[in-house]
């Protein structure tokens, strides 16, 4: 007989593989006489029964095996994890298992709200402890919701963080499993975390406390009061108060961040005596477990309740170039992203534009050699500064679209886990506006046969002065992109070629995918009631801003790169010692700092006696549809302007500056992976089949090769 659920009080160390680390630690606290919320554990056998009966036990390894995880960027791993998460959401708990779980959880729910927490056997052992790997949900009030949350906790065994630390965790499809802790919710007046030993100073202990629930503290959206203690004597060494503005409170379901009433904002969440009791709790737990502990707690009236305890581990330094911790820091809370949005929209972008404008207004030719060199130096400094901002602010802000994706999937339960991107695609990006300008010009050419001839000869001036002006404006606006890398005559000829191609195609507007976004938006919002609906609308608005900036930031940054290159080009013919920029200033990839990080390029070992030819390459299906055409492989800016309509764009990474070829491309293949990369965004907008994340695409698919792009399944077939 399977043991699907076990009461916390009946858990003993022999059951570790059934109940996981978190449940085991809480059971021990109960035996030691500490106050712990009532609870039970849904065992790993329930997880195994679920994945076996639903076929997920094979679907998960297939999803993980599509492509080597070594070759994936964090964005792709996040996508894989989202697909697995959605697969769990799509498969209800089979009847018999549901009945057993209902019998166990039902009585607890009849007494009040519950928390549903992960308790993985691999997690929280003293050897490895990674906070934030797996999901937990607080304030679950209905049985249906509880069963949903249990599935989400199960799926978090395969979270992006867990997949990135798979080696350290010994994560394996064959042996890994997940138990789930179900506990009553204790909505204390103050809550927090205590470290029996300060990770930064072994002679101290730390207590952090907030008003309300501690979810806000754990995810960083609520700033805590912080006490430090002398570890041995328990004497308070310091107390730091933040500006107390918000707190986490139970919502109708789940947790909401609310504004603190002034009365509470001015009061610390704990008295010194209470803080000292928390310190004692952490020290007692450390004594019982034998290693320093991180304890979550809450004060319910006059009673101190221990919520969970786990060993403290300091994150290891990792090998040089290990950027996993940085990647995971990109996952931000809603509150954090709202703050970031204000900073970006109100401070950073205007300042960046002002810098670009100032540089554009400098007449470089009139500068003396010394002045010019100083100007180059200054531009290098600005380039470095804005590239740093790109990495510290713009890239993290892109997580807004991902946060929304998860939120959307939970509410709407679509079969396609990336359906949410259709709601964001209505956003007018700079590259979409530029393509509209191109279309206006193409329309004139389409209407006038003789103008078409003039365009073919790049002689538009006499034939249609208005078109000529439009061309000038387009070229000026596009100066920072790949066109800026060409000399003015070449650039003009290049745009004429594009127009020629466009004019022989149907209008771009008609190419844009007709989607009833309004209806979709309405349907999404109708999944929420009252205040939750307002929150959903705010979440969508944030996601749209995030999505737009994801595309536009490269254009803004491109202007800075262009101005830097302009000054360097002026200095070189004068024979001046032109200093090199700190980061690469490649116009095709203005954010080329990526190269400063170790990237996992495909590296086949020598194939003695054989030559290797790709036949079917696997990537991620990023825009659906099937296309067949000759590959146009982009290695340098000039390749872009050779692009003929009906060709398949093959490149390392689609930059917004390349957007103009998308409307006439039959398909897109790119090395950089992810559903939210530029190529995927623009391809979906025009309904062009797209596969991203194709390892070493540029080297494996030479220009001229015939390829089939399967945007449904993420497969690129190369004809011999």
């Amino acid at each position, binding site marked *: 007989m399977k043991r699907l659920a076990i009461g916390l009080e009946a858990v003993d160390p022999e059951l570790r593989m059934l109940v996981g680390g978190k449940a085991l630690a809480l059971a021990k606290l109960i035996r030691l006489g500490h106050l712990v919320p009532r609870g039970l554990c849904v065992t790993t056998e329930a997880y195994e029964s679920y994945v076996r009966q639903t076929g997920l*036990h*094979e679907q998960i*390894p*297939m999803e*993980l*095996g*599509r*492509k*080597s*995880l*070594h*070759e994936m960027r964090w964005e792709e791993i996040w996508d894989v994890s989202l697909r697995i998460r959605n697969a769990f959401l799509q498969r209800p708990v089979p009847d018999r298992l549901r009945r057993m779980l209902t019998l166990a959880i039902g009585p607890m729910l009849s007494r009040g709200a519950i928390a549903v927490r992960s308790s993985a056997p691999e997690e929280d052992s003293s050897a490895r402890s990674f906070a934030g790997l797996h999901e937990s949900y607080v304030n679950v009030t209905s049985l249906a919701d509880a069963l949903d949350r249990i599935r989400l906790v199960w799926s978090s065994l395969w979270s992006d963080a867990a997949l990135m630390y*798979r080696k350290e965790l010994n*994560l*394996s*499809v*064959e042996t890994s499993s997940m138990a789930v802790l179900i506990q009553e919710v204790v909505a204390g007046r103050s809550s927090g975390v205590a470290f029996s030993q300060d990770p930064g100073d072994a002679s101290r202990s730390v207590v952090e406390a907030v008003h309300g629930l501690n979810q806000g503290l754990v995810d960083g959206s609520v700033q805590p009061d912080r006490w430090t203690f002398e570890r041995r004597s328990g004497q308070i060494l310091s107390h730091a108060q933040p500006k107390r503005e918000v707190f986490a409170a139970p919502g109708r379901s789940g947790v909401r961040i609310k504004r603190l009433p002034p009365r509470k904002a001015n009061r610390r969440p704990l008295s010194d005596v209470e803080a000292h009791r928390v310190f004692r709790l952490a020290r007692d737990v450390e004594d019982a477990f034998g290693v320093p502990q991180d304890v979550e707690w809450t004060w319910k009236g006059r009673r101190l309740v221990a919520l969970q305890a786990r060993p403290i581990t300091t994150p290891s330094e990792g090998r040089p170039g290990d950027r996993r911790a940085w990647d995971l820091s990109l996952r931000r809370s809603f509150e954090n992203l709202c703050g970031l949005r204000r900073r970006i929209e109100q401070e950073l972008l205007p300042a960046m534009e002002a810098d670009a404008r100032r540089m554009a207004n400098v007449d470089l030719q009139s500068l003396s050699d010394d002045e010019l060199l100083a100007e180059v130096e200054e531009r290098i400094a600005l380039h470095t500064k804005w590239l740093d901002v790109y990495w510290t602010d713009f890239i993290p802000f892109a997580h807004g679209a991902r946060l929304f994706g998860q939120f959307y999937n939970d509410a709407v339960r679509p079969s396609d886990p990336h359906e949410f991107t259709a709601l964001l695609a209505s956003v007018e990006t700079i590259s979409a506006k530029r393509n509209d300008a191109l279309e206006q010009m193409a329309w004139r050419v389409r209407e006038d046969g003789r103008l078409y001839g003039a365009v073919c000869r790049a002689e538009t001036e006499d034939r249609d002065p208005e078109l000529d002006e439009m061309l000038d404006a387009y070229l000026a606006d596009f100066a920072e992109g790949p066109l800026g890398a060409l000399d003015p005559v070449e650039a003009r000829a290049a745009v004429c070629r594009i127009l020629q191609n466009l004019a022989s195609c149907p209008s771009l507007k008609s190419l844009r995918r007709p989607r009833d976004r309004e209806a979709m938006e309405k349907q999404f919002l109708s999944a929420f009631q009252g205040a939750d609906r307002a929150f959903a609308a705010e979440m969508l608005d944030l996601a749209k801003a995030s999505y737009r900036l994801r595309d536009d930031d490269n254009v803004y940054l491109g202007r800075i790169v262009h101005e830097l290159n302009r000054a360097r080009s002026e200095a070189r013919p004068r024979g001046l010692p032109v200093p090199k920029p700190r980061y690469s200033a490649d116009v095709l990839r203005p954010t080329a700092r990526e190269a400063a990080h170790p990237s*996992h390029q*495909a*590296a*086949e*070992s*020598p*194939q*003695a*006696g*054989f*030559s*290797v*030819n*790709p*036949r*079917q*390459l*696997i990537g991620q299906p990023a825009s659906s549809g099937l296309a067949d055409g000759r590959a146009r492989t982009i290695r340098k800016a000039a390749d872009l302007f050779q692009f003929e309509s009906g060709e398949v764009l093959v490149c390392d990474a689609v930059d917004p500056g390349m957007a103009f070829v998308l409307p006439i491309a039959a398909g897109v293949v790119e090395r950089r992976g992810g559903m939210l990369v530029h190529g995927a965004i623009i391809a979906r907008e025009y309904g062009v089949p797209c596969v991203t994340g194709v390892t070493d695409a540029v080297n494996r698919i030479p220009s001229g090769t015939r390829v089939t792009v399967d945007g449904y*399944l993420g*497969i690129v*077939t190369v004809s*011999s």
Partner: protein
Amino acid sequence: MAKTHDPGLGEGLRDALAELLASQHLAVLATHRDGQPYCSLVGFAASPDLKGLAFATTRSTRKFENCLADPRVAMMIDSSRNEDSDFHEAIAATAVGEVAEVEKTARSRYLRWYLAKHPHLTDFVMAPSCALLRVRVRKYVIVRRFQEVSELEPR
């Protein structure tokens, strides 16, 4: 994580093929006659350079007749185990090439390789009615990760 999920950067296609050919005992041989395809299960062994695949058959079989009629054949070797996990773990190689009886000068080498793998077939192979054949591989088409397909051609 099982090795097949995550072969890493160093593991090349040729190594994967060599491992597959060494680990499998049986292959499916495809021949045809008058436009009618025909498949047979055969015990096989690969030459160390992977460019030849040897198998044995009695001279009265349909497959032998077919091979004589048209030497263009294909041979498939795969690591499936008839389990769900095959979809993500199995690797399959289809060798395309021309078949002929192993010539006298090469027979002792091929016999050695073949019998090292199938010692229980010694009497069978040595019987005068049995022929030792070799497919000269023109190309391997290798499928991994369910749908990733690459071609290896001898240089």
